[in-house]
């Protein structure tokens, strides 16, 4: 089995990424951005579709392009690249809806073996952080480099 990823473009700081999802609905441009939160060295993972006609970016659009595994694997790859460049930083990921958050959860679960080689992964539930476990539901995720 070969888990594929899209090739990505990145800004110089490796805080902004762009790739093109190719599927049953055609080509959809995806944008990933790591932006600073209110807590130093914790960055929020933002991810959404760029409408090529209007130039608007939506983080709520459901593209249903039939390539979600490849897309999620690519996004998880951007997190790894971001933290390689910014090793002192932690990344928090929150979905805009329960279904979006679940998508992130699936993405992390599918890439957990690779991610946990170098990173600790936590899930947030009932107002507390726990070590991420497959099959458990969380409302947010945090990834940081292993100490």
């Amino acid at each position: 089995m070969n888990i594929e990823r899209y090739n990505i473009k990145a800004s110089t700081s490796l805080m902004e990424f762009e790739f093109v999802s190719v599927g049953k609905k055609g080509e959809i441009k995806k944008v990933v951005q790591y932006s600073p939160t209110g807590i130093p060295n914790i960055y929020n993972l933002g991810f959404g579709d760029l409408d090529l006609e209007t130039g608007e970016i939506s983080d709520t659009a459901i593209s249903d392009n039939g390539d979600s595994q490849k897309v999620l694997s690519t996004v998880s790859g951007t997190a790894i690249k971001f933290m390689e460049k910014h090793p002192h930083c932690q990344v928090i990921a929150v979905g805009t809806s329960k279904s979006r958050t679940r998508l992130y959860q699936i993405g992390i679960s599918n890439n957990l073996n690779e991610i946990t080689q170098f990173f600790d992964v936590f899930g947030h539930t009932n107002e507390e952080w726990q070590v991420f476990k497959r099959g458990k539901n969380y409302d947010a995720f945090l990834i940081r480099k292993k100490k």
Partner: protein
Amino acid sequence: MKKVKHTTTPKKKVAKKQSLSVVIDKKLDNLSNTIIFKKKLEKANRILSNGGVPA
């Protein structure tokens, strides 16, 4: 003379990750000054202010 059968242990199938190809595109530097995903950032900040960070 009896033929000796040589058997090989089947290789375990392991999921291979395609290495991620990253090309730097300076056009994307223009996005640095804009927070694109404000809703998600607000939500993340709420969680961080209530739940802090993992120990």
